[in-house]
């Protein structure tokens, strides 16, 4: 299964011939990615009859291009109006939205596109080169290791809470409690459902996302005529193509940052059941932990935008690896691809790359070509997209409410989910007006049920022995990494402060 360069190149050229499928799919992907509720997975399910009617190659080109472009599309509203299109973009507004409010939306979009493209391309190449080894990751990640990975994501709550630790922790722990709503994972006992049958499967993610970010934002932005600050408005009036070029320059100057955060995304993507939300939270947390300027995070810091964007695009390549190598989908979209490929009689594993390289390598090549075409099409659009922030809040707020509330209906098609989004909207509004971070709540809602699931699995397998958490070699390595990632920033901070104190103590001549 080692990559043969000749075959890979010929598949690449072959894939380019599908540009006429990829190009319109990119625009569809950007739209469905930008509307909360319309993930790539939902769209592929909706268009499944069409996909099954296409020949296999074209169907896969369509699905992979839609997957990659929707990932990038989700970042656009996250940056411009503080509404992540999918959970994978939930960490993007932490620094993207402050940039947009400062009138740097165009720059932020350009940075996001470059980070997504470079991260996506890099991880695609790495995926092809290291496929056999990366596929092993799916086998070695058991419940204990997954618990530590979840804790990496959850520790972002503490990072976000740095301004007022107590408030941040209350928000994060309430999020975890909300995440525990629903039937328990072993005996299906309903918990905290308030009698609603619709909550037995747990809190649906999209209504929570829509409510906490979009609806609460719509209630808040009406305090001003514009979403922009005064300085931001002035900056937007003077904006030119230079802003796009500057955004690209900043992103390229952070190439090392893009590299390692996209690799985090690749590795998390390989783990079945993990996904882009975890990858982006972990990448943001790690990025801040090891930054020389952690205090700038949350204020519109380029690194805080680049980290989650490159990581969630790294996930895209990662999820394809277990699918193609061992036939286990890494996420919802990959699971639908599995159905389509099985429908066409495709066999997985080394035989796929030997007998049908145009399928095996082809899926990665489609991703690479999609990213290349996307760069050429979407970068010039960043200037016009960023103009959205200039629209008066009198028009923007009702549009946000109606389209996102309707978006919350889409995944399960329950009216209940619209009421739920509204309830989360009020919760988010109260939280934001009183200084509690909605991202901390969302992290809890996303990761709470996953953490509980893996914890219970580990407990059941060890018959209630808590020491199982420290029973695996890889798990212990990850525990040490987690401890280091939490402690090192404090150590660095302490050293910096000591150096600063020492410098100020030196008597002037």
């Amino acid at each position, binding site marked *: 299964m080692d990559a043969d360069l000749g075959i890979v190149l010929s598949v690449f050229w072959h894939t380019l011939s599908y540009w006429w499928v990829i190009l319109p799919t990119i625009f569809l992907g950007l739209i469905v990615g930008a509307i909360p509720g319309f993930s790539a997975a939902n769209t592929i399910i909706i268009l499944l009859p069409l996909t099954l009617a296409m020949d296999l190659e074209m169907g896969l080109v369509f699905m992979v291009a839609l997957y990659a472009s929707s990932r990038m599309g989700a970042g656009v509203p996250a940056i411009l109006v503080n509404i992540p299109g999918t959970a994978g973009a939930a960490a993007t507004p932490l620094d993207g939205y402050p940039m947009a409010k400062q009138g740097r939306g165009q720059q932020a979009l350009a940075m996001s596109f470059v980070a997504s493209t470079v991260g996506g391309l890099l991880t695609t190449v790495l995926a092809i080169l290291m496929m056999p080894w990366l596929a092993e990751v799916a086998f070695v990640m058991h419940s204990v290791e997954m618990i530590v990975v979840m804790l990496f994501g959850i520790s972002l709550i503490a990072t976000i809470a740095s301004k007022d630790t107590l408030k941040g922790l209350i928000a994060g722990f309430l999020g975890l409690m909300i995440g525990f709503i629903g039937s328990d994972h072993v005996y299906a006992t309903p918990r905290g459902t308030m009698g609603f049958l619709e909550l037995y499967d747990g809190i649906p993610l999209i209504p929570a996302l829509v409510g906490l970010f979009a609806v609460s934002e719509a209630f808040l932005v009406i305090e001003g005529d514009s979403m922009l600050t005064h300085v931001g408005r002035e900056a937007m009036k003077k904006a030119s193509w230079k802003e796009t070029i500057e955004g690209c320059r900043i992103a390229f100057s952070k190439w090392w940052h893009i590299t390692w955060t996209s690799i985090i995304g690749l590795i998390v993507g390989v783990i079945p059941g993990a996904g882009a939300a975890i990858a982006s939270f972990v990448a943001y947390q790690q990025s801040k932990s090891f930054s020389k300027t952690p205090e700038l995070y949350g204020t519109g810091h380029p690194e805080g935008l680049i980290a989650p964007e490159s990581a969630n695009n790294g996930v895209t390549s990662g999820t394809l690896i277990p699918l193609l190598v061992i036939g286990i989908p890494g996420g919802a979209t990959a699971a639908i691809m599995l159905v389509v490929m099985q429908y066409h009689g495709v066999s997985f594993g080394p035989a796929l790359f030997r007998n049908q390289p145009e399928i095996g390598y082809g899926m990665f090549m489609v991703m690479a070509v999609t990213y290349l075409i996307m760069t050429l099409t979407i970068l010039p659009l960043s200037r016009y997209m960023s103009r959205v922030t200039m629209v008066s809040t*009198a028009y923007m707020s009702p549009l946000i409410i109606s389209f996102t509330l309707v978006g919350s209906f889409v995944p399960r098609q329950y009216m209940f989910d619209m009421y739920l989004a509204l309830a989360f909207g009020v919760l988010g509004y109260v939280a934001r007006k009183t200084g509690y971070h909605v991202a901390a709540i969302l992290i809890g809602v996303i990761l709470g049920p996953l953490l509980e699931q893996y914890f219970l699995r580990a407990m059941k397998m060890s018959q209630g022995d808590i020491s199982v958490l420290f029973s695996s070699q890889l798990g212990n390595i990850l525990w040490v990494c987690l401890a280091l990632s939490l402690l090192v920033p404090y150590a660095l901070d302490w050293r910096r402060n000591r150096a600063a104190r020492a410098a100020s103590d030196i008597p002037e001549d």
Partner: protein
Amino acid sequence: MNDPQSTEKKSLGAELIFPVAALVFTLYYFSTIYNSPWTAQVAAFFVGAILIALVLVFIGRVVMMKARGEADLGMRDIVEPLSILPIRFGLIGLTILFTIAIDWGGFTLTSFVFMTLSMIMLNRGKSKGLAALVAACFSLAGYLLFIVAFEIRFPHGPFENLIDGLF
């Protein structure tokens, strides 16, 4: 004349809404699991206990600040700026009505009415025609995208039934 000391006081009443809601929810959650198997309890009791402890520490902090005269229990944070309070309540009310009415009014018509009324209200009664035009364009675009292209099964109302009848 206002006492300058009192204007500097932190208004912490609004900040208590969230932790008190968290406390109430956690106690409710506990009430639903106290007779359940341990698998349903373990994570919730662990996280819930920490949350209760955090909330109690927060309440203690507020009480101490109040006792020292550094804070009051006002709700300023959540209601300010007062000038837009009626509009904010109006928007929240319209949003609730939109969510209820979409079930029988259908997506397109309800969205149009909600957006038009909200835009007019937020514009303080100005630009009514423009508001109606923008709302009409976006509700039709939504109809074409969600119902025609993606075939999402939104509740049908008079507009959708009319179109279905015509074509």
